[in-house]
């Protein structure tokens, strides 16, 4: 793979995508307001849960805020990259415009995963980081190199798992054509990621760890921030992320063999 070429193409993707989005100023403004209101609403909801009892699943409100911060960052990444690109796969397949992507001398997964960005998602990412820094202060977390490395690794793994899940569902469009509902189900499961895994019953914990690994996406990175994480959990998240990423790739290449293109 020619890395220089891919960087050059990605720079063009960023440029064209930003230029397209900036054509609609009001839309961006509405998105920005939605992101702020959504974060305020989530924190308010979380504070209601903690009003009676100071703890949920052994987590204090200040600690649970870390999960909310990580969730906000991931949701921002979802809105910036995954949502505009991966939902477009369905459109590409239904309308047959995937033909143009497949005939370009560039990796098709790279193209359809990164072609667009939604700039308003950046604000959500920034808000998430602001909340995270606030949590670091109120939880008196010591920022050392090993902590920063582990946080980076676990958050990167979370992004990979989330991307792979979403990409996997979108790829099934090649057979089923319409898969909006499955993506909506995935998004609603992600809301669950705002709460500590230990606050759920044993059965749900197993479900959210094994079948839909939402637990890996927010809880494990948050545990790293609080110094509660154990080595095997981090290792497990790395393994899960690697397996998901490799399989999403394999699944895409396999699915393309069944692509029949839309009729003209």
């Amino acid at each position, binding site marked *: 793979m*020619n890395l220089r*070429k891919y960087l*050059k*193409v990605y*720079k*063009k*993707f960023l*440029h*064209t995508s930003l*230029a*397209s989005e900036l*054509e*609609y100023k009001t839309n961006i403004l509405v998105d920005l307001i939605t992101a702020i209101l959504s974060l305020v609403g989530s924190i308010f909801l979380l504070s209601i849960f903690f009003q009676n009892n100071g703890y949920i699943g052994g987590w204090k409100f200040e600690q649970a805020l870390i999960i909310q911060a990580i969730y906000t960052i991931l949701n921002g990444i979802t809105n910036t990259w995954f949502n505009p690109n991966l939902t477009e796969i369905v459109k590409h397949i239904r*309308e*047959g*415009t995937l*033909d*143009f992507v*497949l*005939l*370009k*001398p*560039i990796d098709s997964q790279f193209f359809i995963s990164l072609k667009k960005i939604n700039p308003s998602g950046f604000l959500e990412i920034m808000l998430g980081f602001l909340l995270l820094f606030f949590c670091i202060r109120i939880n008196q977390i010591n920022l050392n190199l090993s902590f920063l490395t582990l946080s980076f690794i676990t958050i990167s793994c979370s992004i990979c798992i989330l991307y792979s899940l979403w990409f996997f569902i979108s790829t099934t469009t090649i057979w089923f054509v319409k898969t909006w509902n499955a993506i909506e189900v995935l998004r609603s499961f992600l809301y669950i990621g705002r709460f500590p895994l230990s606050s759920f019953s044993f059965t749900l914990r197993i479900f959210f760890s094994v079948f839909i690994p939402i637990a890996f996406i927010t809880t494990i990175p948050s545990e790293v921030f609080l110094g509660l994480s154990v080595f095997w959990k981090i290792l497990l998240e790395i393994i899960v992320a690697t397996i998901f990423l490799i399989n999403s790739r394999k699944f895409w290449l396999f699915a393309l*063999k069944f*692509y*029949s*293109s839309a*009729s*003209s």
Partner: protein
Amino acid sequence: MVQNIIDVKNLSKSFDISSKEPGLKGTIKHFFKRQTKSLKVIKDISFEIKEGEIVGFLGANGAGKTTILKMLCGLIYPSEGSILVSGYLPFRRKENFLKNITLIMGQKQQLIWDLPPIESFYLNASIYDLDKFEAKKRIKKLSEMLEIDEELYIPVRKLSLGQRMKSELLAALIHEPNILFLDEPTLGLDINAQRNLRKFLQKYNKETNATICLTSHYMKDITSLCKRVICVHEGAISYDGKLDLLLKKLSPVKEILIVCRSEEDAIKLENSGFTVKNKIKNEITIKIENKSITSSLKTILNNFDIEDLFINEPPIDEVIGKVLIKKDYDI
């Protein structure tokens, strides 16, 4: 000797198609138990195309023309048989193969809707690994050939269909491919836009010796661009050869309207042994076989007092229409 750039042998393609009975009962049955059957849409076809050739694929809707084009450019896997395009197996979609080809579809677009076409051109240039200087040079050259200038800087959504199609062509040709697959490129365009597009394709073919495979329902596209046509009928090739041979075979006779100086001349002509279609006063329409048209006209002009003469070609759409419904043509 000109080499084959496309080589297709015993190519077949089957699709699984599901069918549904009408009504609510049919819908519920279709939801729970979908009945699918394998439909062979391309049946054992073989042909070769030489470098620099312009070949038209003719056929009724659903005959399989687009499926053939999509297999040739590597979008669809063939079920049986082999395809070699420029020495590559298309469905492997190797980088060097993709740099050699392009697909233009009249009813689909790749330009970024909200931005001027120039942005899409530079994006494509980066995908094809062209530097900015080279991209600028090619955009200038192609835009001159296509006669577009200001349109390059206007958002695509505000362009007319003709301007958009020209921009689509520029975006698809920026990497200077030597094989063009065109699927109904003039669809929906007005007469002038169609003519300009055809003019451009002729020029491009002449200047670059690019091979062009074209499908179109506008017969003017086929007659002005293609010397060779491949007729597809229900997934099989019903004719592969020169277009003029096909036209001669399908319409071996021309109609000639002759305006005589007097009605007497018309009666004389009527009784002179020609096949007469009709006669109204001093105007007479006769049918003459293509092969004897020159000698027959010479005889008429030498022996009769003729005021005017019109040679009527049968409408091309009517002639080609016969191809679309017939299974086999032996020329």
